[in-house]
């Protein structure tokens, strides 16, 4: 019984982790950017959904859509206002661009976090579930919302896979990840592809944020933790490897759920951190990473 419960809860939370991490890994794979404002973008999307659902009478679904739109706009703004100026700057030496992007996306995330705390307080906010009620799965009472979270996560991941592998645009993304110079030589504008990737990333982060807000609730205070967990999942799976991120999301999700149920909820993150240290020491490229 408890095993089934762990299986179901772990599956839902892992799907959400996978969705949250996949955008992060996409940005790194294609643009080489580690976006430390990731958590802030997710939380902004959730808070936008929460605020507009009641205040603007947008309703639950309208609010969710506005949340995803907010995530997308914010991701594009991050690219245009923070990342692009650094990538194009001549004053910053190329080998130091990485640390500049890390520092400035971190600052950008802090700004978003403080803005949310100022306008909406840092109290936890729970987005209204998209589907109310519970369902029995093999004798385990599961909220419909949990089932929906897993379903939407997987649908979104599936669409990304189709986009990358079955469309012309997607193949350009893949090419940009493998050899940006080659792509430029074939006459493609790299900048357009970057904008596309950031937009795609924004949609994914927005959906993940809204689902997270409905599933566990969000607060501007746990933005740092969210970014750190996405970062961990992505490094554990191998930077830039989408399959690796999916596998790692499930490892992390289940490890946390098992620890929370069988040991104590207060130490749910410890085994993950220890595993992460062990993997990075012994296999720095991650579970499925390329070097």
């Amino acid at each position, binding site marked *: 019984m408890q095993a089934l419960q762990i299986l179901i809860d772990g599956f839902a939370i892992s799907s959400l982790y996978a969705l949250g991490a996949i955008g992060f890994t996409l940005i790194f794979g294609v643009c080489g950017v580690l976006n430390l404002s990731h958590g802030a973008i997710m939380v902004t999307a959730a808070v936008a959904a929460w605020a507009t659902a009641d205040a603007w009478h947008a309703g639950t679904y309208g609010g969710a859509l506005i949340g995803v739109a907010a995530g997308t706009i914010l991701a594009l703004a991050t690219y245009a206002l923070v990342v692009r100026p650094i990538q194009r700057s001549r004053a910053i030496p190329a080998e130091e661009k990485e640390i500049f992007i*890390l*520092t400035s996306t971190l*600052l950008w995330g*802090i700004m978003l976090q*403080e803005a949310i705390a100022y306008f909406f307080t840092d109290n936890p906010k729970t987005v209204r579930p998209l589907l109310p009620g519970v369902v029995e799965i093999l004798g385990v009472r599961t909220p419909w919302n949990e089932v929906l979270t897993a379903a939407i996560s997987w649908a979104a991941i599936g669409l990304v896979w189709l986009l990358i592998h079955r469309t012309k645009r997607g193949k350009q993304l893949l090419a940009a990840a493998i050899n940006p110079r080659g792509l430029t030589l074939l006459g493609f504008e790299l900048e357009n592809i970057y904008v596309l990737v950031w937009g795609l990333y924004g949609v994914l982060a927005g959906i993940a944020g809204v689902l997270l807000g409905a599933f566990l609730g969000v607060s501007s205070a746990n933005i*740092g933790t969210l970014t750190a967990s996405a970062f961990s999942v992505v490094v554990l799976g191998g930077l830039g490897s989408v399959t690796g991120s999916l596998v790692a999301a499930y490892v992390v999700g289940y490890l946390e759920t098992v620890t929370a149920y069988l040991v104590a909820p207060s130490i749910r993150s*410890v085994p993950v*951190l220890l595993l992460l240290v062990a993997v*990075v020491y012994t296999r720095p490229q991650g579970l499925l990473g390329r070097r």
Partner: protein
Amino acid sequence: MRSWISAAVVGVVLALLPFAVGSYILGLLVFGFYYAVFAMSWDLLFGFAGEVNFGPSFLIGVGAYAAALLNHYFNTPIPLCLVAAAVAAVVAGLILAVPALRLTGPYFGLITLVAVLLLQTFIVLYSGITGGEIGLDLPDVFANGEVRANYWIALAFMSISGAILFGLSRSAVGLILQASGQDRIEAAALGYNVTKHKLAAFCISALFSGLAGAMLIFSQGTASVGLVVDIAVGVQAIIGAVLGGRRTIFGAAIGAIFLVAAQELLRPLGQLSIFVVSAFALLVILFFPGGFLGAVGALGGVLGRSAR
């Protein structure tokens, strides 16, 4: 030479400050001075050795808690606590250095981040011993809590640390570190022992971070996660160093003190104060990547050219 002279002038002014301003400003500057040491130690590791350490508060926290536990439970006198803090922090630095020698870039950055999270989790988990989130009160405080003496201790510590770190960065060791940070293979090919120098950089950075952490808690009379371990502490040191101008040591100190002061000045804005400070820091990084000192240097260059 010029930077030594200007540093000395600033030092004299700061030393005379307690006769001019109230205890509120002095208390604030005490914070600023210890943060300045955090930022300078970080700058040695990043600016010179090229190691992106996201968790300076791991080194700070290990030093601070080693001192706090000894003082709280065994009433160990402060000097012995500080020695223990230095030893513990150097050991922590070596623990970080081992992966740093094998990993690069984001991987090493993540390890340092995880180190902070683990330290924080364990302190909260064993809150029976460590005081957890609430913190640990210390029986001993610097100069029995007298504000001026406390200020001078902090100032002296920052000046000595700054002089050592700056001298080191301008020495042959600093140059070798800079070379191995920029191109490890070439530095090794020139016959320098990269591993040895990087290990040394980690130990020195850890030594000063840990000592500063321990001294900070003795100036406040309490040790808590929010004061010395939280990721925000480390982030503030990093932002200070980048803001002031990386690879300058003195710039890191200026940036860190500026951050502490700016947040206090903007306190009337309430929660928006951190927003404004972060936005300002972001603008400086985007438009003046050299930080304060870089901007001053560029300005000096322009003025010098127009004078000629």
